């Protein structure tokens, strides 16, 4: 155990800092507090897309990857240093995570040589991807999905519906899980297809988020033709990839979750001061308890990272997902409590910072639902980490 970073790690950090000092877009400075939601109307802000490309071109998009994939072959601990520095500065890599966080890594692992050529554009953000997993009747129970793909010669004919599909209205490709065997047990009849979003038969109906923005959609498939070469991995082997792609997402997520929580705690302190309740013991203790939570989660994340870097599976990631998403909600709630009668006010005249506490509170609901709800995380911890029987 040791606290300091090694010489090469420090060198890595100073290179990163120099790059960020020089190139961080001005827009990043105010648009990304709390929930990391971009201000403005565009689903994917143009400046952010340019920023993602610049990170890629300079080897700072996924630093653990080789240069041709937007990285610089850095070590796992350097990856953590990188994620921490970005979070600390509240600088996003991109808002549309599917391409670089899920599609890229999954194609590298499961894709064939042709499909691997799609990876660099996914990570650079040149291709916008969406992920078609959830359906009206298959949310937590993802394996219950019924969107079907029937093979006809060298073409799959896809019929069905996806829902909550983030970025579907701007995406050019969908990483879509479909049922290819109606008879097999539910986990064994799922395949993964790459579907072009401009294929005839696809209809996208945007759904408005709880915060008023339309960032996800319903996607309907009616006799959509997909060439068989767009099958990723084995036919009926899709389930293994779902497990993999979620793991990619979770591995780096904790740094961000914890960093946001820490920033929220700092903002709570400022809010309490601004509202004259900084001497209130009750308020102080609640904020201190939030600090304790954020701080101990950071340590837990480091610990999980240590075992992950040594190649063992790290249960810490389920813990981190569960704890940081729940804590986020509680922290925003505390902000509203401090605001008292003005807790729910959102206007510019009287609402504290345009209602950002209550807005963040609402947006934070997504974190305990999407990507495996808190209940599902607890099931995973109980059954896979603690070895309790399935129910």
């Amino acid at each position, binding site marked *: 155990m040791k606290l300091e970073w090694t010489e090469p790690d420090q060198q890595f950090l100073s290179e990163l800092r120099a790059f960020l000092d020089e190139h961080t877009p001005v827009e990043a400075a105010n648009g990304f507090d709390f929930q990391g939601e971009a201000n403005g109307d565009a689903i994917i802000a143009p400046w952010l897309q340019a920023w993602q490309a610049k990170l890629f071109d300079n080897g700072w998009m996924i630093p653990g990857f080789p240069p041709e994939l937007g990285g610089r072959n850095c070590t796992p601990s350097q990856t953590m240093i990188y994620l921490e520095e970005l979070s600390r500065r509240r600088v996003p890599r991109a808002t549309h995570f599917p391409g670089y966080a899920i599609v890229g890594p999954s194609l590298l692992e499961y894709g064939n040589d042709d499909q691997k050529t799609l990876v660099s554009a996914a990570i650079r953000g040149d291709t916008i991807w969406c992920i078609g997993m959830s359906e009206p009747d298959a949310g937590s129970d993802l394996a219950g999905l019924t969107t079907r793909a029937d093979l006809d010669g060298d073409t799959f004919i896809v019929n069905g519906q996806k829902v909550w599909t983030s970025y579907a209205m701007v995406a050019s490709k969908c990483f879509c899980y479909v049922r290819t065997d109606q008879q097999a047990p539910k986990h064994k009849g799922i395949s993964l297809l790459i579907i072009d979003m401009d294929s005839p038969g696809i209809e996208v109906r945007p759904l408005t988020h709880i915060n008023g923005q339309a960032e996800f959609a319903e996607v309907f498939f009616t006799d959509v033709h997909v060439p068989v070469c767009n099958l990723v991995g084995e036919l009926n082997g899709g389930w293994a990839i779902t497990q993999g792609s979620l793991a990619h997402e979770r591995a780096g997520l904790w740094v961000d979750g914890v960093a946001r929580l820490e920033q929220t705690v700092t903002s709570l302190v400022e809010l309490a001061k601004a509202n004259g309740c900084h001497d209130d013991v009750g308020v102080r203790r609640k904020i201190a308890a939030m*600090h304790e939570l954020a701080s101990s989660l950071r340590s837990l994340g480091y610990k999980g990272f240590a075992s992950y870097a040594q190649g063992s599976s790290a249960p810490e990631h389920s813990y981190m997902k569960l704890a940081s998403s729940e804590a986020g909600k509680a922290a925003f709630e505390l902000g509203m409590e401090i605001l008292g009668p003005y807790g729910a006010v959102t206007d510019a005249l009287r609402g504290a910072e345009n209602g950002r506490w209550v807005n963040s509170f609402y947006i934070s609901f997504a974190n305990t639902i999407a990507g495996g709800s808190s209940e599902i995380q607890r099931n995973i911890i109980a059954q896979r980490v603690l070895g309790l029987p399935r*129910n």
Partner: protein
Amino acid sequence: MDFSLTSEQDLLATTARNLLAKQCPPALVRSHVTDRSVQAPLWACLRDYAELGRNNCTDLCIFLEELGYVAAPGPFFASVALFAGLLESLDADSALRDATAAGEIVGTVAVAGLNGFWVPSDDLVKSFIVDADIADHIALVHATDSGVVVTVLTNPGERALTPVSTVDQSRRFFEWDTGDEIGGIIPCSPEAWSAFIDRSHVAIAADMVGTARRLFDMTLHYAKEREQFGKPIGSFQAIQHKLADMSLVVERARASVQYASMTVDAGSADRTRACHVAKAAAGRAARSALLEGIQIHGGIGYTEEHDLHLFMRRATASEYLLGPTSWHLDRISDEIFA
């Protein structure tokens, strides 16, 4: 930054675990409630590890976690974590430090006044002196007009110590009216005080995390064995989710203890804050482990026949020792509101 244990540390943890499983079974903790002498043979085994008091805090905490896991009675915590810690930060008389590190003498510290908080005060009555009845040295920490001073006295057992009973018998506490015994020969600088108290906070946190982990392990085991409605209670989701939450709070407390002990060894600027966080996190873990632990055990957990209460008692007392959780939260808020 590297949170993985070295192979020596892994070995230390395993050695401690095996040694304590053998030397400190629940039966010993139980008989210690009425027979104080049973701690002596245990200390005879543990004194070989007294040198941990002057070495890495990370190693000390690894060991203390295992002591908390078995709710070990005896002077290890008082002497190796507290007394040695104080001597080392004061750079005190080397013969005394050597003898303590060799486990040849047993010491304890008198810090808290009657108000119970571990903050140097001019209160002549000192309280919560840990295991003073079995110590042969006592370091008295006293606040004077010219700063904090420490007096090391011998044979506290011969003095008029009044027991302070808590729910827990694995550690004993005493109150002592020091009268005119305060000689104050060793000055204790603010830096030395803070080095000592920070280390003590993470030390008790490590012990407490061990006890919380024990409560959790016993409860998990019980949930797998106990059947109702024809299946293990651990297959019910309400129980699974409680266990998932318990394990989370215990694991994050463990990690925060590990981090805090690393800041102590590194002399990091983050040390004081990290040690308060560790104690508060461990306090929450202990509380949650005992509440849910009892609940999941049902009626059997409510009896003294079952061993669970031994650990529940230790956890409760640890939660209040060296500053209750709320006091540590107040120190954290002092820091973040500064």
